[in-house]
């Protein structure tokens, strides 16, 4: 159990983390989601007592981090795969960590075996690939057999096999009743692993919800229609009591009706349709919309006039979004009203 209360970190004028309050519960994987620079890593460093909060508090099983006796046996963390001395062998890296927390030497062999690095235990860490470094970092997190595990962007830069391995590892750790807290800037990744979501943007808490609820609330399905007899179609739909949203490029969108019903209605009135397609908004879009809103809010409340416009979802780094290409602002405005 990790309890974060009113956690705030300010660097000069910039609020990196702003009044965060949430709890990470045992037995599930909690995803910590936010765009790059949202304050995820800063929050995690404060959880581990590495950075001092400007205000607020973090408790690990009810205690402050620096009050924990042998902290690696309470919480294991992978913050940065490269946070190790490259000239030291994998075994010695883990041994010095183990000794500092009174963990027996035999445990080093066990975790090396768990992450599959036994064969290269005597090799220097600087010769390791990113994936191997990541595995060594995870071995360090598992060393004290802790009840709480924390991973900062663990799948970044890994090959598909490594990603698969980490996903399964996190799930199995949670299934053993442990608290698993994992950060990512990819909604698609979280959708596959996390049971619970904590979303932040610009250092603020945007959502603290179960994955199932998040999907239910945010995966909007609708029907997209294009027709050369646009005015006539609008009129017909309006008379049938169907709410239509006009989006750019002559397309119409209808929420909450089956494409079959709309098709039949159009046929009755002999209206030609060029497109009639069911659409599903992806979670990735929902997430971007959520965080874009926080950026917008931030700009309106704090920034002087003439500041850079709030980034549109399309400006964000990340992989191409699956699903339909919906014009951002209009679709978003409608979605927010709903």
């Amino acid at each position: 159990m990790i309890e974060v209360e009113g956690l705030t970190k300010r660097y000069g004028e910039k609020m990196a983390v702003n009044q965060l309050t949430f709890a990470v519960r045992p037995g599930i994987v909690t995803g910590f989601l936010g765009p790059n620079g949202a304050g995820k890593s800063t929050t995690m460093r404060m959880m581990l007592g590495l950075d001092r909060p400007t205000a607020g508090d973090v408790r690990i099983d009810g205690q402050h981090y620096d009050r924990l006796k042998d902290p690696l046996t309470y919480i294991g963390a992978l913050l940065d795969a490269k946070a190790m001395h490259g000239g030291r062998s994998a075994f010695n890296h883990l041994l010095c960590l183990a000794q500092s927390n009174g963990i027996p030497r035999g445990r080093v062999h066990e975790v090396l075996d768990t992450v599959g690095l036994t064969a290269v235990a005597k090799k220097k860490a600087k010769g390791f690939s990113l994936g191997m470094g990541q595995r060594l970092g995870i071995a360090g997190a598992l060393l004290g057999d802790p009840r709480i595990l924390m991973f900062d962007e663990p799948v970044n830069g890994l090959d598909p096999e490594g990603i698969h391995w980490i996903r399964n590892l996190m799930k199995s750790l949670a299934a053993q009743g442990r608290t698993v807290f994992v950060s990512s800037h990819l909604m698609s990744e979280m959708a596959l692993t996390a049971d619970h979501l904590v979303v932040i943007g610009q250092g603020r808490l945007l959502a603290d919800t179960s994955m199932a609820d998040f999907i239910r609330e945010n995966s909007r399905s609708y029907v997209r229609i294009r027709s050369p007899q646009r005015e006539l179609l609008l009129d017909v739909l309006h008379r049938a009591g169907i709410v239509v949203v006009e989006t750019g490029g002559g397309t119409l969108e209808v929420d909450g009706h089956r494409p079959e019903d709309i098709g039949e209605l159009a046929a009755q009135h002999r209206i030609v349709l060029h497109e009639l397609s069911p659409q599903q908004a992806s979670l990735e879009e929902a997430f971007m919309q959520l965080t874009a809103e926080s950026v917008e809010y931030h700009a309106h409340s704090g920034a002087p006039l003439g500041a850079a416009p709030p980034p549109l979802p399309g400006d964000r780094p990340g992989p191409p979004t699956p699903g339909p290409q919906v014009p951002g602002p209009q679709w978003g405005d409608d979605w927010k009203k709903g």
Partner: protein
Amino acid sequence: MAATQVLRSEWTKIRSVASTLWTLSLAAVVTVVLGVLISLLSKNEFDKMSAKDRLSFDPTYISFAGMSLGQLAMIVFGVLVVSNEYSTGMIRTSLSAVPQRGTFLFSKMAVATGLAFLVGLVTSFVAFFLGQAMLGSHKAAIGDPGVLRAVIGGGLYMTLIAVFSMGVATMLRSPMLSLGILMPFFFLISAILGNVSATKKIGQFLPDQAGSKIMQVVTPIDDDVPYGPWGGLGIMVLWVVVAVIGGYVLLKRRDA
């Protein structure tokens, strides 16, 4: 958090990186070899010296002449022990394992200081005996007054140089910055300040000049240094204490 656990961990850290072996052996070899060469040269020069220089002739101190260069390797050792943590990012892993920063820093320094003292003491004795062997009839014996103090003092001097470097590196974090300040300071600036008459009074109180007084057995005739061997070492210890406290305070306050 038991301090013995952290000491054991720091010992594993220090023995498992190559830089420890390289810097310490370089410090020992350079000090001894250079000391032997200068002792040999001094023996050959002795007959050409003036009477005044002969009266100031200090065979013990001469055998430690290599330390002026050997100490640079000790500086590198002290700097790397600490700043390796920062340059590699290991510091975040280390402080996650040992969040009590005082325990972390002082355990690390204790282990490194112990090792530096061991190497420094052995180096000092070897440099002395080999140097005296080169000096032939002008040599000093370990039983002569003040000589044993000077030889043990040589080991203490090298140790304190390393600890001072650890303190500075804890404050500055970056190995390049730390070396860039310490190396020219000890190799050039201190020597310049000590040899220019206008700044000589200040130069006397710099850590290396004050500390090296402990290795002197024969006081030069026109010596006007206001402290003795132990007084000089005391001044050096003060510098070291200030550097270590500065490092501790900054480590305690800073985000890792």
